[in-house]
């Protein structure tokens, strides 16, 4: 019996055996399995078509776009200020860092200088957001591959910070606290107290997470040596953030192209060795300690001062003046309805978000709206390496892979 399908392998029974006449021919073939788009561990709506040989992954084809909302097209129709809330919805678990990346890009386009206090505030909140992001990642990744307790502990501590965000800007997830040229409002004494309390409270909790995971044999077995990628391949694929540093490449934009208050802080960038899921987990946990360190230093160094650049043609007036002063109200109205006049030109500005390099490529032809805005989303680029990294692993390791990139589909599909 001949099979024309090339994927089919025919195992013939040895003809020398007398009973071979009566045995049927055994046939094995690769199986196509559709995983997602509604699967609890895909963190949103991601579909992957897996080609299986037994339980081994032969090939995987990610099918993206279930959450495509055309954010890049929308950007062309709004002013620069109006786009800030859209960035919240990209990576919806870490809105602050998206705001930060976007505002930095526009500031580069406008050549704006942000006041020093605002830089410190931005760095503090960005690092708080990094802690939230890594906690969220750690909890869900552990839950996906069979360590449930950590999930509750991570989310308990994440809740403290989300409440802190709530007090800071009135929203827990879709924050929109950053503004072009500065930040929306200053930290109140109550917020400062709460943050300092958290900094004392948090490091022992990280130790606790580590104990939970390091003593869990399932966690170790499912992360060590899984989804290995070499440094050379990781760079070639354009991976970034902990996913790249896990392979031993010391690439961190906070060090390479310093921004915010990072150059004034002392911190180290953890780098892995083996390029497997375990190293990437270890880097993220170590970054929690580093974030605490950065926030502490920023709080110590921060001086009083303005929180918004004073360039009336671009930056928004302070809120209290808007309601009491006619000129400020007109300025605010004009900035939101017409936007500011950007010079023609094009810039790319990358920022080290907790997932990787989040970049904005903005083409301006003058006027209040961007002509073209391209968002370099780390999740999307990490999915490009999915097929390469998954080959040869077991089907259950596909779940580990989703987690190890820390993908969020809002950012991946845009």
């Amino acid at each position, binding site marked *: 019996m001949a099979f024309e399908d090339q994927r089919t392998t025919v195992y013939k029974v040895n003809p020398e055996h007398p009973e071979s006449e009566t045995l049927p021919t055994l046939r094995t073939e690769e199986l196509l399995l559709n995983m997602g788009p509604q699967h609890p561990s895909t963190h949103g709506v991601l579909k992957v078509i897996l080609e299986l040989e037994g339980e081994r992954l032969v090939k995987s084809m990610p099918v993206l776009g279930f959450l*495509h909302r*055309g954010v890049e097209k929308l950007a062309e129709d709004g002013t620069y200020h109006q786009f800030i809330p859209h960035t919240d919805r990209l990576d919806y678990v870490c809105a602050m860092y998206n705001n930060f990346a976007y505002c930095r890009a526009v500031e580069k*386009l406008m050549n704006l200088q942000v006041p020093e206090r605002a830089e410190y505030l931005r760095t503090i909140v960005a690092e708080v957001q990094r802690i939230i992001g890594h906690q969220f990642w750690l909890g869900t990744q552990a839950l996906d591959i069979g360590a449930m307790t950590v999930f509750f502990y991570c989310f308990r501590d994440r809740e403290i910070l989300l409440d802190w965000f709530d007090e800071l800007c009135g929203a827990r997830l879709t924050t929109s606290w950053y503004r072009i040229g500065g930040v929306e409002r200053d930290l109140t004494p109550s917020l400062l107290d709460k943050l300092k309390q958290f900094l004392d409270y948090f490091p022992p909790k990280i130790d606790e997470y580590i104990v939970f995971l390091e003593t869990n044999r399932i966690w170790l077995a499912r992360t060590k040596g899984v989804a290995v990628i070499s440094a050379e391949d990781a*760079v070639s694929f*354009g991976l970034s953030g902990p996913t790249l540093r896990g392979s031993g490449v010391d*690439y961190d934009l906070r060090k390479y192209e310093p921004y915010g208050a990072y150059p004034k802080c002392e911190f180290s960038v953890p780098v892995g060795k083996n390029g497997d899921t375990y190293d990437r987990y270890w880097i993220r946990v170590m970054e929690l300690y580093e974030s605490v360190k950065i926030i502490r230093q920023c709080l110590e160094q921060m001086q009083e001062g303005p929180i918004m650049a004073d360039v009336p043609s671009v930056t928004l007036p302070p809120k209290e003046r808007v309601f009491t002063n006619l000129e400020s109200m007109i300025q605010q109205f004009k900035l939101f309805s017409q936007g500011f006049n950007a010079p023609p030109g094009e*810039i790319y500005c990358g920022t080290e978000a907790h997932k990787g390099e989040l970049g904005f490529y903005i083409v301006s032809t003058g006027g209040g709206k961007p*002509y*073209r805005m*391209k968002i370099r989303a780390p999740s999307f680029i990490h999915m490009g390496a999915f097929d390469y990294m998954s080959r040869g692993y077991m089907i259950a390791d596909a779940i580990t892979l989703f987690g190890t990139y820390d993908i969020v589909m809002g950012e991946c599909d845009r």
Partner: protein
Amino acid sequence: MHQLVKRVQETLSVGFVGATEWRGDVAVTVTREKLHEVAQFLHDDPGMDFDYIVHVSSVDWPDDEERFEVVWEFYSIRKRHRIRLKTRVPESDCIVDSLTDLWKGADFMEREVYDMMGIRFRNHPDLRRILMPDDYTEGYPLRKDFPLRGKGWRDTFDFLDEVPR
């Protein structure tokens, strides 16, 4: 002129269109025939050493003769410098060489450009739509002539009032 631009211009006898440096970003424009050659040079030359691909993007300029601009952005992790490589393609023949053989990450990024702008990449291993559905036939969303609203299914609802743009 920037050091990197100078090196690129030296190695190219023809095909160098122009270079800009604005806000610290260096951009080089080459003709599309020379694109792969320049990319190979950027990737392999030890002085350039652009091993990291940042993004692939495209810009639509409907009034220009060569309508589409394809943009690659590279970074060198060892040398820590950045460059933007650009080329133009006309609408009647919008195809450029794929750089997937040099940077593996270009695969998904070029697929996105194809999906959103309709620019095809020669020698791309798997050029399919990526964000839009495979059977989507209504055009390429990021082209300037693709309207922001009022296209497709929603347009057929007669109970929706015409909303002025």
